[in-house]
């Protein structure tokens, strides 16, 4: 197993290097003078020369790439041109929104998709099966941003004065300013600068609410999360439902399932212990593959639900040509994507020994 993990880790390194090189090249391919873009009217030739020297832009491109890699390894992604703050700081501030949204979207997709798929396979060709498959087909065909808008209209306008009404924007009710858990717990005095990791965790509202045992905050955060999470999770849900269905269908026809039945095992044990265990392997792969969809969905959904996450910041920065931010965020998202895929692969190897030894 260790050998497999090491092999998989070494396989990710060239891809990570490739990502750095590609984003580096993409950033350099952007037309226009970076000095002019950052300093605007103040950019005289002398000032620009200093600017270039300070940012290492007077060095040959390969040296620049090495500097860029060194900085990246040290967690330095440069300063945002628009916010005049380190990109890393912005990331700590805004990534939690996206992580929370993505996690709940995936949770929704898995907790609904897998049971639906399994039941459809088990009741093959029943009304439930046909309905699920029609629903799944429609689900994968819907534009995420459109679904988000329609959900917002349904729950914030049509159901306005009913108990089902849900807020169409923001992460918390305006005015709510929850205390971070590290202050409630007295770990860090108010006003002191907490480490990035603590700030990161405290900005995941639901997690912060649980850590501070604040039920009201938890309900508020969840109510704001439902619509965007459903919007982001619908396409993955449809894909996961289809995959679990076809995977369970295939397993149910296997000899060992028939043997299990012939042995007189209860149906619950046949399906739960024998069939599902093997059927879930491809489902795990599909779940891993869906992280990309979740990130793409988050970019669009954050724009609709006014969530200041990584996606929305990225799109806004593109229009305002904040290249360092775009470059930094893209690298981090892509690197995260690679890491998640690696974890999924390792998990897969752990669950299925055939992969490990191949």
């Amino acid at each position, binding site marked *: 197993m260790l050998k497999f993990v090491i092999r998989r880790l070494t396989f990710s390194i060239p891809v990570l290097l490739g990502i750095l090189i590609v984003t580096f090249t993409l950033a350099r391919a952007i037309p226009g003078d970076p000095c002019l873009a950052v300093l605007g009217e103040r950019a005289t030739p002398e000032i620009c020369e200093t600017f270039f020297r300070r940012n290492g832009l007077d060095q040959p491109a390969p040296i620049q790439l090495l500097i860029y890699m060194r900085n990246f390894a040290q967690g330095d992604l440069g300063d945002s041109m628009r916010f005049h703050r380190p990109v890393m700081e912005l990331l700590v501030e805004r990534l939690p929104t996206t992580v929370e949204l993505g996690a709940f979207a995936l949770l929704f997709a898995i907790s609904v998709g897998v049971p639906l798929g399994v039941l459809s396979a088990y009741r093959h060709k029943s009304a439930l099966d046909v309905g699920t498959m029609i629903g799944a087909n429609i689900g994968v065909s819907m*534009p995420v941003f459109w679904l988000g808008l329609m959900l917002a209209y349904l729950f914030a306008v049509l159901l306005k004065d009913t108990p089902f009404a849900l807020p169409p924007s923001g992460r918390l009710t305006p005015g709510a300013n929850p205390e971070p858990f590290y202050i409630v717990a007295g770990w860090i005095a108010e006003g002191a600068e907490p480490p990035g990791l603590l700030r990161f965790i405290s900005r995941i509202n639901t997690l912060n609410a649980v850590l501070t045992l604040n039920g009201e905050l938890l309900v508020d955060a969840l109510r704001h999360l439902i619509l965007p999470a459903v919007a982001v999770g619908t396409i993955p849900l449809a894909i996961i439902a289809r995959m679990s269905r076809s995977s369970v269908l295939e397993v149910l026809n296997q000899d060992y399932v028939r043997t299990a039945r012939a042995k007189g095992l209860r149906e619950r044990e046949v399906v739960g212990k024998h069939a599902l265990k093997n059927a879930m392997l491809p489902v795990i792969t599909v779940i891993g593959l869906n992280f990309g969809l979740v990130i793409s969905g988050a970019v669009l959904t954050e724009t609709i639900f006014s969530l200041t996450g990584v996606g929305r910041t990225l799109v806004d920065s593109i229009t305002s040509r904040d290249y360092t931010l775009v470059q930094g965020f893209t690298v981090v998202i892509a690197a995260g994507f690679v890491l998640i895929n690696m974890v999924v692969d390792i998990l897969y190897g752990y669950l299925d020994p055939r992969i490990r030894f191949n």
Partner: protein
Amino acid sequence: MAATRPAALQPESAYRSPNLWLEALRNLRHSPSALLGMIIIGALVIIAIAAPIFATHDPLKTMIGVPGETGRLPSKPPCIPILGCEEPQHILGLDLNARDLYSRVIYGTRTSLSVGVITISLSIIAGTTLGLIAGYVGGAVDNAIMRLMDVVLAFPALLLAISIVTILGPGLTNALLGITITFIPQYARLSRASVLSIKEQEFVVAEQALGANPLRIMLAHILPNAITPIIVQGTLGVGTAILDAAALSFLGLGAQPPTPEWGQILSESRNYLFTSPHLVFFPGIAIMITVLGFNLLGDGMRDALDPRLNRN
């Protein structure tokens, strides 16, 4: 397909039973999802070609000051005849610039269909070429091409497309190019896998022994055997490409106003969701139906073209 093949070419393709394609076609006819998909796509193609006939108005013309028009803007309660309103001239009402929404949605079919088909065709051509070369040549070339594909796949597709469009500048052509690049690795991987499995077979080795040109071997022998999964993947890909293009337009990076493009129409009207939901509803439905058509056909084709599934 086999029926139209000139007789002289028959011996060369004799390894592929001509019945396979016929059988696939028959399977396709019996698959309800493929049939429905074909009907939807067929209807959309007709609408796209004959858009001027289906549209009731010029999609770019504002109806302000036009005789017989109220010039009603959606800030007032929308009047949608299809929902039982008594104002007959606009089927889906007017958009924010007082243009006929129905005609804009109809013309949008042209943009979305062509974007979907062009993107996928370009990425199939590029991806298949790369995959064929990587698989056939092997060694360092294979490694270089496939590692590059790994890197492209490491980016979430929409994010990569956004980054590319940022550099090239917003616009439909650049969006199309950006999406194309994100799709290339799929086809490269598929065709490479097919090449690897076919390359060692006797008929290819025999051809090599006869001294045939590698290009000829690739195009005449390997490609036809590798094409089936690519076609299936391509059909499913058209739907995804249409969704991506709409998303880019929605973010303001794809089609620019006043081009009638569904994502762009949605983007224009999304701030009016709470007062004029119809402006958002119909373009989205159009996108959904189109993507659904390609997905259904792709699913049906996968089942029909995969002989392993013909157990019954």
